[in-house]
């Protein structure tokens, strides 16, 4: 299950959607808005996506995680719009019969999402200035 949403992410609800009696392990990752990036104070973030491509890439990440590990359910949710410090921007939950697969697939999914999914954030400082973050190498380039 992959989803983009403008609403707050409820991690507990996401956990419920991936849990299963056949799976003894669930791994969850939450990305949350930090108050500091290096020296720079952030007061809020704006997230923007290219939605059809983002959903397609997220679905491909789920397929690849299922191909590489024995997993039960996979949930990948990214929030869009304006987020305050402390809010959840992304959540990845994976259930699996065994914990190694749950951890490995969860970590793969968040790593791949940050590398391949067309979503961008704009960091907004206390002085009202804002900058889109485009620091890394070309997406898809590794």
């Amino acid at each position, binding site marked *: 299950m992959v989803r983009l949403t403008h609403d707050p992410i409820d991690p507990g609800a996401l956990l419920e959607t991936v849990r299963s009696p056949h799976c003894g392990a669930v791994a969850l990752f939450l990305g949350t808005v930090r108050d500091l990036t290096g020296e720079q104070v952030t007061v809020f973030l704006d997230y923007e996506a*290219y939605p059809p491509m983002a959903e397609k890439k997220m679905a491909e990440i789920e397929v690849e995680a299922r191909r590489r590990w024995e997993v039960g359910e996979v949930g990948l949710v990214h929030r869009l719009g304006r987020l305050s410090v402390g809010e959840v921007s992304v959540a990845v939950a994976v259930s699996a019969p065994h914990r190694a697969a749950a951890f490995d697939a969860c970590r793969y999914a968040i790593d791949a999402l940050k590398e391949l999914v067309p979503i961008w954030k704009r960091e907004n400082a206390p002085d009202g200035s804002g900058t889109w973050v485009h620091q890394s190498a070309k997406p898809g380039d590794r």
Partner: protein
Amino acid sequence: MSFTVHLFAGARELARAEMVTIDLPAGATVADVRTALARAKPILTRLLGRSAIALNHDFADDDHILAPGDELAVIPPVSGG
């Protein structure tokens, strides 16, 4: 052929536009999209050098040949998560 190229994030802000329309001859490639975009919106030139081009919601190689109706987008370095 006429193509609409979607712009996002820093590219959208620099160009002050959510999309740019470019005209290309038959047989044009993704590399030609880059050239046409830089001509239409010179301010994008530097960011284009660090951006991927998406074609129908996939990352496209520069030598890929366009077909009518292809959906194009500039994908600057992503920062989701």
